[in-house]
C-alpha cells in the first residue's frame, strides 16, 4: 500500500509538473518530422531501391533502416532528455520541510529510495514505449514489414535508463542538487563511457604504458556501458549473434551497486 502510494506520488508529480506532457510533445515533434520524411516519398524511394535486391534483401534493408532510427544521435538525445526530466526527483524530495514529513511516516528509508527509483524507471518505460512503438508502427504500416524484435529495444533502452538513473540517484542523494547530479552523470556516462567503449581505437593508439592501459580497462569494466548495450540491442534486433554479454552484466552490477549505495547513504543520513 505504502509502496504503491510512493509510486503514485512520483507519477502524479510527473503528470502535474507536465514532465510527461513535455516529453510526449518533444517526442511527438520528432515523430512529426519523421512523418514529413515519409510523406516526401523518401520511404517509397528507399522501398524501390531496397526491393531491387529481392524480397529477403528488401526486408533486411527495411529492418536496418528502422534500426537506423535508433542511431547514436537519437539515442543520445532521448537519454539526454530522460535524464534531464528525472534529475529533480531526488533533490526535490530531499528539500527541507518535504523530507521531514516523509521521514515522519512509517515508511522505511530503503523503501522510499527503491520506490522512487522504480517509479522514475517506470515513467521512462512509458515514454520509451511511446517513442519506439510509434516509430515501429509507422514504418511497419508504411512498408508492410512487421519486425517484432524491434520492440525489444523498449526493454533494452529502459534497462540502459535504469542503469544511468541509478548513478544519477546516488549523486542526487549526496549532492542534493539536480544540476550537479545531472552534469556529473552526463559527463561520466556519455563522453567517458563512450570513449572507454572505443578505447582500442582511441586511447590505446595514444597510450603505450601497460599501467595506463590497466587503469583505462579498469574504468571501462566498473563504469556502465550504455553504448555497448545499445550495440547488443541493435545486433539482437538484426538477428546477429552476440559474442559477449559482459557489458550488460557489468552494467547491471553497477546499477545494483549504485542502488545499494543510495539506500545505505540515505539510511544513515541526518535530515
Amino acid at each position: 500500500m505504502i509502496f504503491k502510494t510512493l509510486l503514485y506520488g512520483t507519477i502524479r508529480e510527473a503528470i502535474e509538473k507536465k514532465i510527461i506532457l513535455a516529453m510526449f510533445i518533444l517526442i511527438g515533434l520528432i515523430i512529426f518530422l519523421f512523418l514529413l520524411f515519409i510523406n516526401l516519398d523518401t520511404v517509397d524511394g528507399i522501398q524501390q531501391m531496397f526491393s531491387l535486391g529481392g524480397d529477403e534483401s528488401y526486408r533486411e534493408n527495411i529492418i536496418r533502416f528502422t534500426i537506423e532510427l535508433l542511431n547514436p544521435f537519437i539515442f543520445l538525445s532521448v537519454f539526454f532528455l530522460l535524464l534531464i526530466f528525472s534529475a529533480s526527483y531526488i533533490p526535490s524530495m530531499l528539500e527541507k520541510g518535504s523530507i521531514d514529513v516523509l521521514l515522519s511516516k512509517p515508511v522505511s528509508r530503503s523503501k522510499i529510495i527503491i520506490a522512487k527509483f522504480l517509479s522514475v524507471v517506470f515513467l521512462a518505460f512509458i515514454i520509451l514505449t511511446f517513442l519506439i512503438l510509434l516509430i515501429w508502427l509507422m514504418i511497419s504500416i508504411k512498408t508492410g514489414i512487421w519486425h517484432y524484435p524491434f520492440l525489444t529495444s523498449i526493454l533494452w533502452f529502459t534497462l540502459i535508463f535504469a542503469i544511468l538513473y541509478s548513478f544519477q540517484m546516488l549523486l542526487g542523494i549526496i549532492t542534493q542538487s539536480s544540476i550537479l547530479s545531472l552534469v556529473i552523470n552526463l559527463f561520466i556516462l556519455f563522453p567517458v563511457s563512450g570513449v572507454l567503449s572505443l578505447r582500442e581505437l582511441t586511447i590505446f593508439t595514444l597510450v603505450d604504458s601497460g599501467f595506463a592501459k590497466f587503469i583505462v580497462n579498469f574504468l571501462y569494466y566498473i563504469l556502465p556501458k550504455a553504448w555497448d548495450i545499445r550495440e547488443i540491442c541493435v545486433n539482437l534486433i538484426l538477428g546477429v549473434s552476440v559474442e559477449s554479454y559482459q557489458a550488460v552484466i557489468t552494467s547491471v552490477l553497477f546499477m545494483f551497486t549504485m542502488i545499494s549505495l543510495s539506500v545505505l547513504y540515505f539510511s544513515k543520513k541526518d535530515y
Partner: protein
Amino acid sequence: MPVVEVNKLIKEYPAKNFSKEKITALKNFSLNIEPGSIFGLLGPNGAGKTTLVKILLGITFPTSGEVKIFDKPISDITYKYKVGYLPENHRFPNYLSGEQVLSYYGRLSGLSVKDVNQKIPEMLSMVGMSDWGKTKIKKYSKGMMQRLGLAQSMLNNPELIFLDEPTDGVDPIGRKEIRDILLNLKNSGKTIFLNSHLLSEIELVCDKVAILDKGSLVKTGTIEEITAVEDSYVFFTSELSDSMINDLIIKFKVVMHGKNEFTYASSSLDDVNKILDYLRSGNILIKGFNKEKTSLEDMFINIIGKQTVN
C-alpha cells in the same frame, strides 16, 4: 508509562569546516513525557529543539543515548503509525489540492483509501478549511498551509502529535482555534509535543514545559512550578492603615503594591505565619496569599539570560 522516554541523549554534528571538532547539539539530555498531556519545549534559536524533535521522529539519528516512544526504540519505525508531525516550514507538493495532500500523506501513514476518504472532510472541517479542500495549495496563504499541515498531522488519529510552530503565520482568531483544537485533543487523551516561540501560547495550553539552552535541559516542570518565584509571597488584604504599612515595611521588609496588597520574600514559613499573626492582631481581613508568580516569558528571559552570562 511515559509516551516519550529520552535517556542521556547526545547528538553531535561534524563541524562544517572539515575540522575534527564536533558541534554538540544535545548534551546528555533526559526527558519523560506522560500520556494525555501537552508538553511545551522552549529554548532560544540553536538550543537544539528541532534536533530533539527530529531525533524523536527518526529524521536525525542520535550519537548516543536511549530514546523510546510508546516503549519502543526509535529504530523500530512501527511507532510512527501512532505519531503525527507538523514540521516548521513544511513543504507539500504545490501542484496538489488540499484534499490530495491529505490523501497522499494519509496513505503514507498507513491508512486505507477508504479510511483516508472518510477522514479528509472531518479533518478539513476541524481546521476550518472545508471550503478549500479542492483548491490547489499553491493558492493557500501561510495560515491556510499551517491549518492544512495540522490536519495532515492528525489524519491518522495519532496518540502522539509533534507540532513545530503550529500557529506560525496564523491570525489571532486562527491561533485561538488551533489552541482549542489542541485542548480538545488533550481531552481526548492525546499527547501533544509543542515546540513554539510564542511563550504566551505555551503558557495557555501546556501542562508541562522544558527549557532547553545550548543542548542542555535548563529547567522542567509544570507551568505553575516554572513560573513560581522562589520564597516570595503575595498577600491580599483589606485596606491597611498607614502605621501598619510602616510596620510591615520596617519590621518585615515587605514591598507594598497599594494599600491592600504587598509582597513578602522569605524562605521561612514561620516568618510567613508571623506576618499572618500580625495582620490578624490588627483585625485585618486576609483575602488571600499566594506564592508569587512571574510570566513564562519573564522567567524564560531570566533563565536564558543567566545561561548566556554563565
